[in-house]
């Protein structure tokens, strides 16, 4: 579903990122960026989707186990905190290892994302599978869509 979301595009793939940065520097566009927009490659990446009953937040945090992510909600701002260990710099015998690429984020991270109004934080739930956390925030009853039956006059 998120695959065909071109209008929410946050940037091209990482491979094109240097080129995009160059072009952006040469031809800055006058549009204001969202105050909480993040550059491509931020860790963890977040998708947010809405259904009639709830708002669902998907946190793509590869390498984090169930207990490694702290999820807080305050005033409709969802804050995610955690830490991902860097790969060991030394091999088994204590020798330093040559590193050819280091693209994966490591260390402490904090990300905050604004959520729509009217969510019931008390009934929020979170699940974890394969490095993706799914946070389900149900809408308050009064905000759910309601069908109004037309009465016989």
């Amino acid at each position: 579903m998120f695959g065909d979301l071109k209008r929410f595009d946050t940037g091209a793939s990482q491979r094109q990122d240097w080129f995009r940065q160059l072009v952006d520097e040469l031809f800055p566009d006058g549009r204001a960026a969202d105050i909480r927009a993040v550059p491509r490659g931020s860790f963890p990446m977040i998708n947010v989707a809405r259904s009639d009953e709830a708002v669902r937040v998907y946190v793509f945090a590869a390498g984090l186990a169930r207990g490694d992510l702290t999820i807080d909600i305050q005033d409709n701002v969802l804050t995610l905190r955690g830490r991902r260990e860097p790969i060991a710099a030394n091999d088994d015998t204590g020798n330093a290892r040559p590193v050819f690429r280091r693209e994966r984020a490591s260390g402490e991270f904090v990300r905050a994302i604004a959520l729509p109004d009217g969510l019931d934080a008390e009934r929020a739930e979170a699940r974890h599978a394969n490095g993706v956390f799914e946070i389900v925030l149900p809408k308050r009853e009064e905000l759910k869509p309601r069908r109004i039956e037309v009465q016989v006059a």
Partner: protein
Amino acid sequence: MNEVVHQTQQSQPETPPSESRSQTALAPAVDIVEQADSLMLIADMPGVTRESLYLEVDNNVLSLEGDIQLSMPEGLTALHAEVNGQRFARRFTLSHEIDSEAISACIDNGVLTVTLPKKDSHRVRRIEVQAA
């Protein structure tokens, strides 16, 4: 540890199916480090399961591909998407010292670890300096 390496030694004449779909694929972030007897490649592929992962070595090119498996209910509208794709894909050219028969891989919490052992003739040998 899940053995997930599929190997094909001869090159196929037709283009692999990944070529046509590579437009929508995301490039996973990778770390590559060298050890005395192997290279280690670590790739972030959140949402990819052992079943949806496909690794292939063809003509000294290592292909990593994986579909993002999310159980999402029907009727969702996206509000914000930083991951806007359904799959990860990335390819690397291997050097000739890699023993492509002995490559092994495992995926845990969306982190793929591929171990690329070197051929025996290319392992590090430490040379002791003799007293004169």
